[in-house]
């Protein structure tokens, strides 16, 4: 199906995973931007103005929670839906992320890329 060029910002520091994202999302036809730490991710979000952000939690310089807190306060980007993809499986982590404004939370090992794409579509 033809997709209009939706912009997705991925904030993730593991290059292996980023590559996988790029292959899959690129195939679908999203315009993908990648940042590897929270700080640059924020800056990019403001400039790039994505339609959706995929956010890892364990990031250098500024972790995912801090990113969410900062994004919430920023008028320019606070309305962009953020999906958290993390290795942390505890309920407490999920609740914290959601309370900080994340739209949804996925544990990486529990979801295939296909499933992740389905969820992206949901929130776009």
């Amino acid at each position: 199906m033809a997709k209009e060029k939706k912009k997705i910002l991925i904030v993730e520091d593991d290059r292996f995973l980023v590559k996988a994202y790029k292959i899959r999302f690129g195939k679908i036809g999203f315009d993908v931007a990648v940042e590897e730490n929270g700080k640059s991710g924020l800056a990019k979000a403001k400039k790039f103005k994505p339609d959706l952000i995929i956010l890892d939690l364990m990031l250098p310089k500024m972790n995912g929670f801090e990113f969410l807190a900062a994004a919430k306060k920023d008028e320019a980007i606070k309305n962009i839906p953020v999906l958290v993809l993390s290795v942390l499986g505890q309920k407490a982590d999920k609740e914290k992320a959601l309370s900080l404004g994340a739209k949804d939370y996925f544990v990486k090992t529990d979801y295939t890329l296909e499933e992740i794409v389905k969820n992206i579509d949901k929130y776009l």
Partner: protein
Amino acid sequence: MVRIRTKLLPAFFISILLLAVSSFYGLFFIDKLSKIINENTVTKNASDEAGLRFGKIENILTLYAISDSDKLPALKSEYDFSKGRLDSAAKKIKQRQDLKEFSAVIDKMRLKIAEIADKMIVARREQLKKEGDIGSSLAEMKKLRYEIIDKTARGSEKLKLGLAQMGYEDNEFNFQYKDKKHLDNWFAGIENARSNLEKEKFDLVLPLLDEYFVLAQKVSGARFEADDLGAKNQYYLIQADNILVEYNIAASHITAVLDKEKNIILDDSARQKKISLFFIFTSFLAVILVSIIVSRSINAPIEELVKVARKISFGDLSQRADVNSNDEMGYLAGVFNLMIDSIEKSGKKIEEEGDELRAIISSMGEGLLVLDRKLNIILMNKTAEKALGVSLDDVAGQHVKKILTVFKGDTELPLSQYPANRMFKSGEAVSISIKDNYYYKTLSGKMLPVEIVTAPLFKDGIKGAIVVFKDITDLKVADEDREYAKINLENALKTVYIERDLVREQKTKLEAILNSIGDAVFAVDKEKKVILFNSAAEKITGFSFKDIKNHLYSDYIKFIDEITKAEKNEFINAALSGEKTILSNHTVLVAKDKNLVSVDQTTAPIRNSLGEIIGCIIVFRDVTAKREVDRMRSDFISIASHQLRTPLSGMKWFLEILLNGDVGKLNPKQAGIIKETYANNQNMIDLVNKMLDMSRIESNRMVVNFERVNLADMVKKIIGEIKPMLRQKGQKIHFTGLKDTDLEVNADKILIKNILGNLISNASRYTPVGGEIKVKITQKEKNSLLFSVKDNGIGIPKKEQYRIFKKFFRATNAVEFEANGTGLGLYIVKSILDIMGGKIWFKSEQNKGTEFLFTLPIDIMWCSISK
């Protein structure tokens, strides 16, 4: 204090008599009496009245006392003058000026007119006087008076009318009517008097007549005759009409009325007689009344006393005389009552003493026998009856030998040697003690060892004997026992010494062992004082046995809870009451240097050979290092697991990409290898998840989060997520039981998902393709759910069933059937259920299938955080 005022009847009758006598005296000297009375009362009143009226009449009469009849023309001119004033006044009314002033003027005028009119009447009467007609002069006077007054009245009526037209009321003119009324009344009185006189109502008439005749006397010019009826009292005889009135000047009242021939028609004596009769009558009445009252007040108390005395004689001591008067009768009654009181009291006292005595006799521990001089039984108390096995009713009056025989040792005593007879002979009390070795042989043949005391019963000499005996069976036995006990004790003591030496030997051996083992051992006695403390204990705590021996352990060794820091002492209490406890959670020892040492400990009671608890023993171990290691291991697992997920998810997705053909199509062989790699990777992900769960459970960080959920929906959702996996193996799953209810439970969705997920995936994994899995939920009790996950798979071999919940354990047939598996699933499920308060068990037969059952409490109020 009693007031003595005699009410005795005779005395009273005498006083009555005196009274009667004095009244008769009064009768005979009536005028003296009447004088006293009259002067003091009637006379005073009458003369006051007469005086008053006389005064009034006097005033009027002065008006009449004008003798100068030549003044008539002068009077007339005065009258005209006044009339003229009245007319001008009337004019003023028409001009409506100060009417009050005007009415005052009117009053004055009318008085003046009345005055003048009177003068005119007098003048006229003077004329008439010369003609000598007194009776008619009165009538005339009356007539004239009325004429003037009428005229004045009519005139003033006119005025009144006129003023009324201007708005004035009657009462302005009342005074005028008062005068008229007064005169009317006076004349009416006179008329009345005349008629009453005819009817002989003398006493009513007199006051008025007095007036009348005084007036008449003055008016008529005092035609009278002096009376010769006693020079002391001066009388006037006044003639008026056809009667003569005798008037006492001094007393100023009429004393008699006579006819023309001087015959008495009415006289005062009648009145006086009436008065004295009245007094006699009333005094008679008084006498009767008083005597009635007096007799009652004397008789009544006497009757009361008699009544009470009679009742008392019949035995009713509760009665008392009810006489409360403040006199001799009252006093008598009071004394009478006191007498009854004391009789009653002493009666009661005697009764009480009798009761007391009876009570003492019946309750005394010794037997009491009362015998007469011939040794017949008079009295026996309960103790004696019991000891001798007889009853007083049966044996009263019989000889004492009928109930007992006296023995000394084995020898029976002759009667003369009986203590009672010896007492009679000597005259003094006889006492037999335990040393004398006396016995009473009872009717039943029982030999009762006794101590006896017998004393004489005095009543005009020695009438009998009082025997008190005591059963000393116990004392005798005790005596013998004492001897035996002494011997036994000596023997026992010898044994003890021997054993003590043995024990000493053993103790030394024990100490050696204790000191060599690595665990700390200490023991306390029942009072929790330290009685044992090995070297390991010394090392760990920092205290030496020497320092704390025989002291209360808690003064030195403190066990506290790791988290709450509260002192823990119940385990020692529990052990001392017989429980064996193991405490391993969160117990920390506070050493001498205040360091905290984590310990695991076991406590157990120490019992002696009789099984009684004499203390408890505590074995503990320093596990600080172990706990630290455990924690580190847990944390390590956590961190490692999380870190492992990153590459695992990377691999998962890349493999997915490959399989999807996103980077080029795969040939079937390649695809097969990739699929297998994917499956293996998934196993690793699975393992990592389970290890995370395990580390959480083991480090007690698993938290149960309750929320109210619809049970059926929750389970359906869980099954829904697992279904795809089952479909791959062509397996079916059925949900039965509470699947369509609205039942809401307090549950942790994630944990239940974990449990059910594990069980169902196990069921799927260990069941061949096309198999069937059944999930059933029922409500077991009011607050418990029973879950069942049943498969028709490979089952669990009986020999290995006992290990099924152990960590990492996989049954041999399971490993054969499915290479992949962590061996952690059931361990985790059981651990979770342990935390949630549920239970898990299973039924399985190899090659037939397995059913796992578990219960979950769903009570709303129940909740527990990590143990």
